[in-house]
């Protein structure tokens, strides 16, 4: 597995707190036995609503519909992003759309760990920094943003900002150990020893 340190590209700013995974990927698109093609349905209902308004002259189209952000690599979000359902379909679809990192105020735990398992770092930045970034990128979508996990810095144009990530998670990206399965399978005897000590496994 390859290590992840620098992520560079344009960004896609998405305003709002507590954006849940039902909104990121409505349940009707979970009716499938693979993840393929999911990216086409990201924010489908939110997009339809915002785009219809924009068409009638009210507000802007949804950022996920806006061609200016079509090739974005970095997603910028608010607080409690990815709350609600544990559906991995949400981060899977974001990843399949080409997004390779998320910067936000905070994340739901399940969304965060699902994203780690895909190699999609979810880093944190302060509210102020997020507001600045969002405004700057909304007015200049071609701004190149770079995230460095080794330096814990985010660069946007000439500005540099501090970002954070739990040290263990950061280490696992930097060393290429973010997919846990290999590690979990490494010591089968240790697993067996724990199982044998558990009364409910042995039948009391």
């Amino acid at each position: 597995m390859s290590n992840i340190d620098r992520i560079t590209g344009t960004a896609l700013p998405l305003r709002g707190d507590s954006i849940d995974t039902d909104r990121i990927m409505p349940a009707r698109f979970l009716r499938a036995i693979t993840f393929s093609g999911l990216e086409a349905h990201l924010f489908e209902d939110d997009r339809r609503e915002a785009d219809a308004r924009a068409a009638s002259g009210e507000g802007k189209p949804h950022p996920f519909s806006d061609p200016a952000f079509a090739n974005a690599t970095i997603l910028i979000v608010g607080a409690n992003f990815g709350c609600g359902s544990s559906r991995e379909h949400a981060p899977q679809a974001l990843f399949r759309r080409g997004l390779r990192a998320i910067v936000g105020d905070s994340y739901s735990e399940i969304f965060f760990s699902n994203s780690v398992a895909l190699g999609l770092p979810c880093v944190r930045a302060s509210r102020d920094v997020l507001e600045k970034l969002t405004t700057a990128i909304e007015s200049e979508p071609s701004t190149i943003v770079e995230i460095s996990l080794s330096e814990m810095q985010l660069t946007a144009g000439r500005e540099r900002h501090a970002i954070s990530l739990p040290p263990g998670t950061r280490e696992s990206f930097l060393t290429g150990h973010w997919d846990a399965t290999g590690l979990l399978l490494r010591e089968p005897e240790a697993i067996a020893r724990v199982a044998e000590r558990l009364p409910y496994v042995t039948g009391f």
Partner: protein
Amino acid sequence: MPSTLLQKVWDAHTVRVLPDGQTQLFIGLHLVHEVTSPQAFDMLRTRGWRVSRPDRTFATVDHIVPTRDQRRPFGDLMAEDMLAALERNCREHGIELFDLKTGRQGIVHVIGPELGLTQPGMTIACGDSHTSTHGAFGAIAFGIGTSQVRDVLASQCLAMNRLKVRRISVTGALGRGVYAKDVILEIIRRLGVQGGVGFAYEYGGAAVDAMTQDERMTICNMSIEGGARVGYVNPDETTFRYLEGRPFAPRGEAFDLARQWWASLRSDPGASYDDDVTIESESIRPTVTFGINPGQSVGVDERIPSPSEVSPDQRASLAEALEFMGFTAGAPIAGTPVDVAFIGSCTNARLSDLREAAKIVAGRRVSGRVRALVVPGSQTIRQAAEQEGLDRVFREAGFEWRGAGCSMCLAMNQDRLDGREICASSSNRNFKGRQGSPTGRTLLMSPAMVAAAAIAGEVVDVRRLFS
């Protein structure tokens, strides 16, 4: 040193500490359903791995099952495909599947406890965020994503960060017409939808001690709506009595030994908590959500707040909620007309929930403007309810009586809202689009309150319907 149940269970299941500081945790029970597992089985196949402990893995089908006509093949071809994939995967790996033919099918978080699979002191994982439900038995139960489902299938382990513990004591006794659902809605209202991130919630206090296992499950179920991935109650006599005689519970001498072990896991007096919150039962009333997340709720006799009344970080989300719902700040929630009444879901579709709702419904008629349905949590519950004649009570009042499944909780089958319909729902999420219509609106409340709304055709205080 005195410790919490979380610490004891965590330590008993720790395989080792991984290089990144996470714990490799043995998972005692893995529950599988049709939506989040097929991709995990595919990943296993790609890497040539087998399921490590099929004996500790159980499956059922719940999210996509039709609740009206359940004959196979399903009319809905995609649903048929998903169930067929689950059947194939279970057969290939020797996993027991509670499908429609078994009489034991139902919502995964309902059947685990009902069959006695869920027991105190276990670590439990399932590819579903409401796995926290099982914590009502003093288990540590996590919702996980599909890659982690793969991890558990392959290794029977998860890599997890240790959680902090917040003790939530609910003191006193609940008033009449106030239910476990109101307690958890109040907790989420006070602590916020992300207040629990990083925490396990330990629920206790006189009100929780007095609760049945069904009620405790309702509370633990919605921990995740408050941001807490794990919620639990210390196991006690109520828990042990519930488990005795269940199909997968230990029997005879083993049960007595189990009971001793279970009791030893309770949080010790003097255990230290990372946070402590007390809520007085007397302050809790029948509660209704008015917004687009489960923290946006008011007492049924209160008014919908205006953005100037809430903290600055909640203003934008409140404004968005009012706009989506088409509600006016300052308006009372009571009297809001409803189009659909849904009694179902892993939060509130157990036998006791149906009994409470039936008490309200008995001898009354569903309002002419309301489409009302009852979807029992499992086939076992459905059958038990029919034996008591509850189906007749609901049918005579004008409710539809359906087969078991998730149904309109997330609308992956044919049961869904149309257009901007407003649904009084006993489920757990009022997110935009959750009940199948992108513009549909959900008001979360207790099953008795849903029953009352169905009769009145609008949100009413259930206490007014007690004779």
